[in-house]
C-alpha cells in the first residue's frame, strides 16, 4: 500500500499544483470580467454626459479618459482635443491629451500638447516634467535642462522636478550636479525611495559600486519588491566581484518577475566570471531568445561558444553580431550628436534617418520636425515629413 502511495505521490502533487493554477486563472479571469463591466458602465455614462452637455469641457475630458482606459486612442484624442478647445485657459485637457498621445507613441503630438500647455501656463509643473521626460527619452537633455532648471529654482522643495533635472544631467555625464540634486531629493523625501533610487544607477555608472550597493540596500528596505532596484544592486555586487551576493539579488528579482531578462543577463555575466561557461551560456541563450536585438548578448554568447570549443555556433552568432555592430555604431554616433549638438539640424536629420531605418516613424517625425525648426530650408526633411504624415493619415 505504501509503495502504491509513494508511486502516486508525484502524480498527486502534480494534480494539486494544476488545481491551484486553474483556480488562480479562474479568479483572475473573473476579476478582469468585473473590471471590463465597470469600464463599460463608466464609458457609457461618460458618453451619455457628453451627449447631454456637448459644451461641457469636463464631460469631454472624462470621456477622453474613459476611451484612453479602454484603449480607444483615436476617440480619446478627439475628446481631449475638444475639451482643450473648450478650455482655452486651462491645461487639464492638454495634459491628458499629451498623456494619451504619448501612450499612443504619437510623440510629436504629445510634445505639441505639452508646449501648448506651457504656453498657457508657463509654470505648470506637470507640463514641464512631462515635456522634459520626452526630451530625455529622445536624448535631448539640454532641451530638458532649459525647462527644468528654472522650474527647480522656482520650486526648490519639489522633489519630482529635481529628479527629472538630475536625469537630464546624468544623460550629459554631469554626475556632480546630478548627484547633488538626488541627495537633496533624498533629504526632502527620505521615505519616498522611488524618487532617489537613480542615485544607485549614478554610482554604478561612476564605478562607485560600494556606494551604489549601500544606497541600494537602504532603498530596498523601503521598496523590497522593486525589481529594477534589486537588479541595480545586483550589478553593484557584480562589479565588486561579490558574485554570491550578485546572484542572490538576481535570483530575488527573478522570483518577483520571472520575465526579468536583465537579471538573466547579469546571471550569465556572473557565471562567466566564475568560469562556469555552460551555466553562462544557458542564461545568455535565454536572454537572446527573448531579446534578439540585444547586441552585446550575441557578442558575449558567441565568445563563450568559441571558448567552449563550439566554434561553428560561435562563428555563426559572431557573424551576426558583427553586422549588427555597424548599425549600432551609426545609431550611437547619431544619438551622441543629437545630444551634444542640440542646435544642429544635420544631427537631427541624421537621427531621423536612423529611426526610419528602424521603421520607427513616430520618432522619425519628431526628429524631422526638430530639423525643420532649426533649418526651415531643409527641403529634404520637409518633403519626407509631408510624406510620412500623409502615410500616417491614410493608415487607420
Amino acid at each position, binding site marked *: 500500500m505504501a509503495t502504491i502511495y509513494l508511486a502516486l505521490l508525484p502524480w498527486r502533487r502534480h494534480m494539486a499544483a494544476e488545481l491551484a493554477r486553474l483556480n488562480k486563472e479562474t479568479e483572475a479571469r473573473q476579476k478582469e470580467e468585473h473590471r471590463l463591466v465597470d469600464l463599460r458602465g463608466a464609458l457609457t455614462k461618460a458618453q451619455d454626459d457628453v451627449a447631454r452637455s456637448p459644451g461641457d469641457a469636463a464631460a469631454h475630458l472624462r470621456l477622453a479618459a474613459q476611451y484612453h482606459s479602454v484603449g480607444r486612442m483615436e476617440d480619446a484624442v478627439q475628446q481631449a482635443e475638444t475639451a482643450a478647445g473648450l478650455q482655452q485657459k486651462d491645461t487639464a485637457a492638454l495634459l491628458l491629451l499629451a498623456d494619451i498621445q504619448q501612450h499612443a507613441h504619437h510623440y510629436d503630438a504629445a510634445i505639441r500638447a505639452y508646449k501648448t500647455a506651457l504656453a498657457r501656463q508657463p509654470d505648470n509643473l506637470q507640463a514641464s516634467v512631462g515635456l522634459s521626460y520626452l526630451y530625455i527619452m529622445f536624448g535631448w*537633455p*539640454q532641451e530638458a*535642462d532649459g525647462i527644468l532648471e528654472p522650474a527647480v529654482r522656482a520650486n526648490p522643495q519639489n522633489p519630482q522636478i529635481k529628479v527629472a533635472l538630475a536625469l537630464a*544631467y546624468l544623460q*550629459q*555625464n*554631469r*554626475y*556632480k*550636479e546630478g548627484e547633488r540634486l538626488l541627495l537633496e531629493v533624498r533629504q526632502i523625501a527620505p521615505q519616498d525611495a522611488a524618487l532617489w533610487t537613480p542615485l544607485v544607477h549614478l554610482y554604478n555608472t*561612476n*564605478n*562607485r559600486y560600494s556606494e551604489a550597493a549601500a544606497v541600494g540596500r537602504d532603498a530596498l528596505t523601503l521598496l523590497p519588491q522593486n525589481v529594477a532596484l534589486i537588479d541595480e544592486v545586483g550589478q553593484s555586487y557584480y562589479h565588486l*566581484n561579490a558574485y554570491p551576493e550578485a546572484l542572490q539579488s538576481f535570483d530575488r528579482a527573478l522570483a518577483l518577475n520571472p520575465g526579468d531578462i536583465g537579471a538573466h543577463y547579469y546571471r550569465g*555575466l556572473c557565471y*562567466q*566570471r566564475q568560469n562556469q561557461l555552460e551555466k553562462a551560456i544557458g542564461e545568455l541563450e535565454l536572454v537572446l531568445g527573448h531579446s534578439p536585438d540585444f*547586441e*552585446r*548578448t*550575441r*557578442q*558575449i554568447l*558567441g*565568445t563563450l561558444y*568559441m*571558448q567552449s*570549443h563550439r566554434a561553428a555556433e*560561435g*562563428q555563426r552568432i*559572431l557573424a551576426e*553580431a*558583427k553586422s549588427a*555592430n555597424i548599425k549600432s*555604431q551609426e545609431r*550611437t*554616433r547619431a544619438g*551622441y*550628436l543629437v545630444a*551634444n*549638438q*542640440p542646435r544642429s539640424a544635420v544631427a537631427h536629420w541624421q537621427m531621423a534617418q536612423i529611426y526610419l531605418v528602424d521603421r520607427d516613424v513616430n520618432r522619425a517625425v519628431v526628429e524631422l520636425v526638430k530639423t525643420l525648426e532649426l533649418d526651415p530650408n531643409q527641403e529634404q526633411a520637409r518633403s519626407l515629413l509631408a510624406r510620412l504624415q500623409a502615410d500616417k493619415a491614410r493608415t487607420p
Partner: protein
Amino acid sequence: MIETMGSGGAFLDYDGDGWQDIVLLNNARLPGGQVSGHPLLALYHNNHDGTFTDVTRGSGLDIEMYAMGVAVGDYDNDGREDLYITCALGPSHLFHNEGNGHFKDLTQQAGVDNAGHWGTSCAWVDYDRDGKLDLIVCNYVKYPSLAADLPCFAGNHQRIYCIPAAYETSTCTLYHNEGNGRFKDVTTASGIGAARGKSLGVAIADYDVDGWPDIFVANDTVPGFLFHNERNGTFKEVGVESGVAYDEEGNPHSGMGIDAADIFNNGSVSVAISNYQGQQTSLYNQIGSAVFRDDKVTAHLATETGKVLGFGLLFVDYDNDGYKDILQVNGHVQDDIQKREPQVRYAQPTLLFHNSGDGTFQEVGLKSGAPFTEPIVGRGCAWGDFDNDGRPDLLITANNGPAHLWHNETPPGNHWLTLQLIGTKSCRDGIGALVLVKTAAGVQRSEVRSGSGYLSQSDLRPHFGLGTQTQAEVEIHWPSGTVDRVAAVACDHIWKIHEGAGRFE
C-alpha cells in the same frame, strides 16, 4: 579633439654607437581653432653618462608638423635606423637616416604620406618576409581639417571635446616595401582596408606561431582588430572570432595602448589593451590556437585600471625576474573633467603591475611612490635601457607638458640578457625575429618588433630578465627561416649577433 590625444616618443640608436638616443614628438594646443606655436620634433643624443644633448637643429628633423606617432626601423637595410612619423592635420613623414646625425625627409619619393588620414600609432613589420620592412599605420577618425572639428556642448552651452563616437571611422594603411626606397599602398589589396575602425594602437605578434607576423590593433569605441597573416600578402580580420575585439561584457574598448607578448612564459600570447575611465584594462590570454579570453579580473588588473583613463601600455620586465610586467600611463582627455565627475582627475598616476608568474599581477607603482604617484596627463610610453645597465628605463610623454624619462632604480640582483640582432638575409635590424631564451627556470619568448605602447617605440633590442639564472641557451628564428642557436650565453651583458653567425659578439 586632436589636442587631447598627445604624441609619442621613441628610443633609437640613430648613430649606431650602442647607446639609446631619444626622439620626442610634439604637437600643440589649438586655441581658437588655430595651431599655437611651431611644434617640432626633438632629437636627443645620448652622451653615455646619463645625460642627453638636444641635436635637433640641423638634423633634418626640425620640420614643423602636428606629430602623433613614431616607428623606428631600418627600411633600406643600410645599417642606420630610420624614422616614420605620423601626423594629424597633414601628411606623415619618412625620415631616412643619412648618417652623421642627419635625416632626410623622403616621404614623397617613398610614397608613404598617408595623405588624408589622421595617423596615430605605426609599426614596421616585414609581413611578407621578403627581408624588407613594410609599414602598418593606424588611422583614427575622419578629420580632414580643423575646420571640420565637430563642436559639442555640455550644459549651459559649454564647449567640450566630442567623444570619438561623434566621428566617422577610418581604415589602417598598409605600405609594402618595394625596395629602392619605394613603397606601395596595399591597404585594399591586403584586406587591411576592409576593416573600418578608429585605430590608436598597434602591436605585432605571431600568435599562432606559424612564423608570419599578425597584427593586433586597438580601436577607440569600436571593436578591436586582429589581422591574421594569411601568408600570401593578405590578412583576414578575426578580432571578433578570436575574442579580442570586445571586453568580457561585450563592449568595445576605448582602446589606446596595446601590447602583445608571451608574458607568462607558457608559449602563448597575451594581449593587453588600455581603456577609458571606469572601463578597465583588458588582459586577453590565449586559451586556444585562435581564441583569447579576457582575464582582467582574475589577473587583478581590473580594480586599479578602472580608476584611471589608460593610454600608453606595454609589457616590460622591469625587475628582471623573468616575467614581463605591465606599465600603464594614464590621464583624462577632458581637462575640466573634475567639474562634472568630482572623483576623477585630469592628471593621473602611472600604474605598474608586477607579474607574479601565476597569471596574476600586483600593482606596485602606487606603492613605490614617486614618480608613479605623481599625477601626469600621460599619453605615450616606451622602454629602453638608456644607460645599458640591464634595467629597462621608461620614456613617458604627457599632454601639454614635458616628457618624462624615468631611470630604473630597481635594486640590481637579478640577472639579465640584452641582444642586438643584425639581419643579413632578413631585415637588417632583425624586426620579426623570434628569440627564445632557455634557462633552468623555463623558456622565454620575445619577438623583435616596432609598435606596441601608444604612439611610441621601445628599444629594438630584445631584453630578458633571468632572475637567479646566470647563463642561458639562446635560439633565434629569423624571418628568413635561418635559425641561430647559441648555448651557455653569459648573463648581464649586451650581446650582438649577425644572422647565421651562430655566435654572439
